[in-house]
């Protein structure tokens, strides 16, 4: 996991401070730093607001058509960020800069907060909110002081994932000419492979990630988030929106238009061009993408489960450091992860060079946090008392986990695996560098067409990518909406 981080640090030392310093302290880096920081500082709260607000509207209010809205709000997850960016830039060619970057990123990534928020809100016992209201709190007060604190894990986890994505996103920003650390690192790598300037930028990016991890850890707290008691939680009574119904609907429609209709319309436009369906490799590309993504999802799940368990059940410093290390590696642009693996496999295990094993290893490094965060909040809702009860009745530790913990966690396992799989299907740079020669995935083919402005050629790959993502998003959605069984 730490191979990529080690790689950056090693190369950093190898180059030496005297070479590194002028590469770090230059005007270009200041510009990148300000772009990247602004993107995170503005983008993450927007994603959190949109995600939590949306989840609350569809779960706890009388919003008309809320079951439909619940699906629509999750749908942008099936539209990869670079596809959305491609749709936007072909409709509005002048789109760019921080504004453009924020627009694309927020619309693409808010579902990463929305889904966990949805799941948690559904799992909340309304009794708490009712008590608060009976004690004189207003509706807003209930939301702010009772609901939001209970969503803390979901929001913090989602926000962390969004931040990491913002740091590492390449394709979506490259298409609209918005420069962040990652796009600059990729440009450097394209010119020099593992040159000192690229690694200097990598070091700064790794430090930014460290700041994020520390701030997320400080919001996590030590409270328990599981409900236990006799009987089942009652369904909540939905709150009436009253006069705010229409403005709310208009707001949601605007989000849906920006996130789905605009890119969707451009995509349709390109699909209906006469030369759009000429690619002869669509079938094999589709199959190879499925193979690699499934492999990535399964492997990430297997690695993430024990770590999630440690981090929730033994929430001490070692577990946090272990978990933090995972996030650290994943915030680096995938190109650094890929190059580190190229170096390591070539020098130490040449037999694995350019094999699916290496690709999947990269996927695990990059997408582990998606699984981890989901598993962690799922596990946090499994009352430890149930495990204790099972143990007291004589089952062994392992058997308890298999028969009690895992079934209770099942929805979040499905969701975490689906999230990781989605990431793998959309992954670009690691696949290009590490896959066996001749491998074509939907993402790599889409990218090679769209970055050379062959928009019509790119469209079929985008559609297949969306088609491939729909089952994963459906799993995510269903698991988020499941009634808790505890």
């Amino acid at each position, binding site marked *: 996991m730490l191979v990529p981080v080690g790689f950056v640090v090693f190369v950093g030392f190898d180059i030496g401070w005297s070479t590194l310093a002028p*590469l770090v302290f*230059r*005007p*270009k880096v200041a510009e990148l730093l300000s772009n990247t920081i602004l993107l995170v500082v503005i983008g993450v709260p927007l994603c959190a607001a949109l995600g939590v607000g949306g989840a609350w509207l569809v779960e706890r209010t009388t919003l008309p058509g809320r079951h439909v809205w619940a699906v629509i709000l999750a749908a942008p997850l099936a539209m990869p960020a670079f596809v959305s960016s491609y749709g936007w830039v072909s409709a509005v*060619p*002048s789109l760019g800069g921080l504004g453009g970057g924020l627009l694309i990123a927020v619309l693409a990534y808010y579902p990463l907060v929305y889904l966990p928020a949805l799941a948690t809100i559904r799992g909340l016992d309304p009794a708490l909110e009712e008590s608060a209201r009976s004690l004189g709190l207003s509706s807003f007060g209930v939301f702010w002081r009772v609901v939001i604190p209970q969503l803390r894990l979901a929001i913090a986890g989602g926000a962390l994932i969004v931040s990491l994505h913002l740091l590492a996103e390449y394709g979506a920003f*490259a*298409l609209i*000419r918005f420069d962040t650390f990652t796009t*600059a690192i990729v*440009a*450097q*790598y*394209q*010119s*020099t*492979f*593992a*040159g000192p*300037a690229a690694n200097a930028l990598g070091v700064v990016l790794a430090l930014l990630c460290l700041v994020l991890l520390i701030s997320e850890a400080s919001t996590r707290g030590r409270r328990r988030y599981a409900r236990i008691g006799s009987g089942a939680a009652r369904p909540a009574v939905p709150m009436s929106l009253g006069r705010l119904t229409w403005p709310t609907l208009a707001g949601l429609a605007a989000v849906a238009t920006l996130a789905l209709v605009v890119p969707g319309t451009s995509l349709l436009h390109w699909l209906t*061009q006469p*030369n759009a369906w000429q690619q002869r490799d669509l079938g*094999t590309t589709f*199959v*190879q993408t*499925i*193979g*690699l993504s*499934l*492999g990535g999802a*399964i*492997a990430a799940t*297997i690695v993430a489960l024990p770590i999630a368990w440690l981090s929730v059940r033994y929430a001490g410093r070692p577990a946090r450091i272990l978990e933090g290390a995972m996030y650290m590696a994943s915030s680096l642009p995938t190109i650094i992860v890929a190059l580190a693996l*190229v*170096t390591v496999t*070539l020098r130490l295990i*040449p037999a694995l*060079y*350019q*094999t*699916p*094993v290496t690709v*999947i290893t990269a996927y695990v490094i990059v997408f582990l946090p998606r699984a981890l965060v989901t598993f962690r909040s799922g596990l946090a809702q499994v009352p430890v008392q149930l495990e204790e009860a099972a143990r007291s009745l004589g089952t062994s530790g392992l058997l308890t986990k298999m028969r009690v913990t895992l079934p209770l966690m099942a929805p979040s396992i499905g969701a975490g695996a689906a999230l990781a799989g989605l990431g793998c299907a959309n992954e670009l740079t690691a696949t*290009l*560098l590490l*896959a*066996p*020669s*001749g*491998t*074509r995935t939907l993402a790599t083919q889409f990218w*090679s067409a769209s*970055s*050379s*402005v*062959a928009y*019509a050629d790119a469209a079929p790959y985008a559609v297949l990518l969306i088609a491939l993502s729909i089952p994963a998003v459906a799993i995510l959605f269903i698991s988020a909406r499941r009634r808790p069984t505890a």
Partner: protein
Amino acid sequence: MRRLIIVAATSAVALALSGCSSGGSPSARSSSTSIAGTSITVYNAQHEELTQAWADAFTKESGVKVTLRNGDDSELGNQLVQEAAASPADVFLTENSPAMSLVANEGLLATVDPATLAQVPKAYKPSTGTWTGIAARSTVMVYNPSKISADQLPTSLLDLQKPEWKSRWGAAPSGDDYQAIVSAVLANKGKAATLAWLKAMNVNAVAYKSNGAVMKAVNAGEVPMGVIYHYYWFIDQAGTKENSVNTKLAYFKNQDPGAFVSISGGGVLKSSKNQAAAQAFLKFITGKAGQDILRTGTSFEYPVGSGVSANPALPSLPSPQAPTIDPSKLNSKDVTDLMTQAGLI
């Protein structure tokens, strides 16, 4: 149990991928043996469509299976350097020559078959004989006549550093194509002049990620003009014209660095275990059949070998106006260092 699942998962993936893996035959064959039935891996930085057409025609003729690994010049060139003797590649094809020189300078390329070199005129191959030109492309200025008229255009690429061109031209500085153009400026004008020009470019130019994006922006009127290679324009004109309908091309003259003709290279890796098939592929590309694909296909790049003429849609080449530069002298490392110093990348 856990290990079992990993094995199952990876083998499922391996199965899904087996349709495409190279299956490179480990047995080295001497040139006297038939090469039919062997297979080669080509690290391909040229346009995928073009190389695929070459590969298909070559496979049909020789029975050699060709697997492409696609990427960009510098990316694949640097990858080859990193892989060194362990490289699975047999052949390297580039869009521009600096990446080829990078690999050649590391001593990783075998000498090209003399019969292949004989097919290519002197102007399109390096003096070293470690690689050969396979195609060529010309630097052009694409401009939007509704934003700037032909007689207002700058006459030298170096003029673009003047303050009057601020925000009035586009380019793709992070791309290999533009970096090859910079390498020509460097070879012609020296380090100090190139750095000054690049620093001014960082202020003046609007940076895009690809030549196609530059042309599209010019077409949309976002910038009046842009520095790109010729074929982007001709490909679009032959197709939907959606990214070039409002634009025209202008060529720099008088040996200006802006008249630079960039040579796409082909070389055989020393470490290749399929020397005979790899050399045969290079010979095929530079031969009549291979060069004809450049004339008749949709790549709109210039043929360089076997006396094949260019696609009739293209203005003739070699242009007497291009600067004379030995392609093996173009240095990608110095270019990226200067561009980093100028803040462009």
